């Protein structure tokens, strides 16, 4: 059964989230199939001045060790990446990360719109974008970019979100392919994983 009608053409998964997304991300990472074949690129709002601790907290239950990439680091299949504190995180055409200290966007650095937008540009229709709970509209424009370039868009079911501003903002500006609870997002990723076996 292929409920989400997936195939094995995807090259990356990008996840954005803010207030109230931590538990969801932990759940997703802890139930990720072993050897999940795609890189997972995450931009989550976080305290600007706290460099340490977040990646460790996410890694405790995660199947894969989460890392904060250095500037110019190669994106590896199966790697799980988190945007570092106080840097914007972009993806470049050669499938490397690029960090920057530009102005905050939507009051955020890292800004989800930047990570999602550059992923959309690089991966085009080979991208899955997921936007979780959050208290501002960062990420909505990024989801629009993903949709416009042919990628698949998912948001967390707003009724399940601790704060639903973020997924609702995305739903208001672009077509969202699936509105899912975190458990269903996990199911989605498991089904995606099967396409590569």
């Amino acid at each position, binding site marked *: 059964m292929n409920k989400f009608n997936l195939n094995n053409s995807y090259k990356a998964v990008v996840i954005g989230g803010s207030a109230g997304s931590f538990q969801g991300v932990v759940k997703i990472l802890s139930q990720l199939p072993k050897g999940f074949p795609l890189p997972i690129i995450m931009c989550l709002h976080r305290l600007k001045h706290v*460099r340490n601790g977040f990646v460790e907290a996410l890694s405790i239950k995660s199947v894969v060790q989460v890392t904060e990439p*250095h500037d110019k*680091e190669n994106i590896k299949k199966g790697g799980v990446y988190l945007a570092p504190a106080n840097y914007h995180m*972009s*993806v*470049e055409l050669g499938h490397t990360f*690029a*960090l920057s200290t*530009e102005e905050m966007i939507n009051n955020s650095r890292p800004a989800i719109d930047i990570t999602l937008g550059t992923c959309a540009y690089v991966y085009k229709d080979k991208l899955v974008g997921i936007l979780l709970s959050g208290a501002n509209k960062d990420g909505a424009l990024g989801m629009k*970019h993903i949709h416009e370039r042919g990628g698949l868009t998912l948001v967390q079911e707003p009724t399940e979100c601790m704060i639903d501003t973020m997924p609702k903002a995305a739903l208001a500006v672009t077509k969202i392919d699936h509105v899912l609870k975190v458990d269903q997002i996990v199911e989605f990723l498991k089904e995606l994983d099967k396409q590569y076996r």
Partner: protein
Amino acid sequence: MLDIDIADLKRISELIYQRYNYDFRNYAMSSFKRRVLRIMELKKLSVEALLKRLTDSPVFINEFLDELTVNVTEMFRDPSFWRVMREEIIPAIMLNHKQFKIWHAGCSSGEEVLSMCIMLKEMGILQDVTLIATDLDVNILERAKAATHPIKNMELNEKNYIRFQGTGNFRDYYKEENGMAVFNKDLMMNVSFRRHDLVLGDIFNKFDLVLCRNVMIYFNQALQNEVLKKFHDSLFKYGYLAIGSKESLIWCDYANRFIVVNNEEKIYKKIKD
């Protein structure tokens, strides 16, 4: 939605290089694209209009550079870095030299050099240190020289200073005038500001410590490699180089001429000429 393709970005960097001798051809593409789009949006210009403006108006280039270069910074960014500076790096330099020289490469609006001066003053050695702060952008150098920053930035700067565990009272270093924090000019007595282009410029002095944090992230790897050679040649043997906390030099040709002194804060030491 406003967009620009790589061919047009290349036309822009080529034009600026040919006509004004600024070389952005090896800048990291994602941020260069964002900066150019930002200018197009701000000035309401299409790609063709931007190219025409750059061709026709030599005055516009300064404005363009000012917007293109990233000038977002804060005082005592990464307080843990500054603690390592105060407790390990500066004392290590002073073991060998009572007087020494520091280069802030790509100093932008000057928050980092100002932080350095405050730290050196609190260490009681400000008078023994010569600081040179350089940037490509003449407008931003004027702002750095004035040591005057919006008062609204002081909340974050002071928080960083407290996390750095500065030994004074942050507010004693500036006076508030018309919504601006005007820093005490004596802090900058040993700082000289000069325009310098990291990409095309020559080596102009030798230093005990070079700070270039979060500048090379805007360059591609080929250019990072070139610039690291310049830093190497600008450092005395056993001099220190500090880069941004998420930058890395491991893929550069000259990386093996440095050792890592502090990996968390990305501080390197030159060990080979």
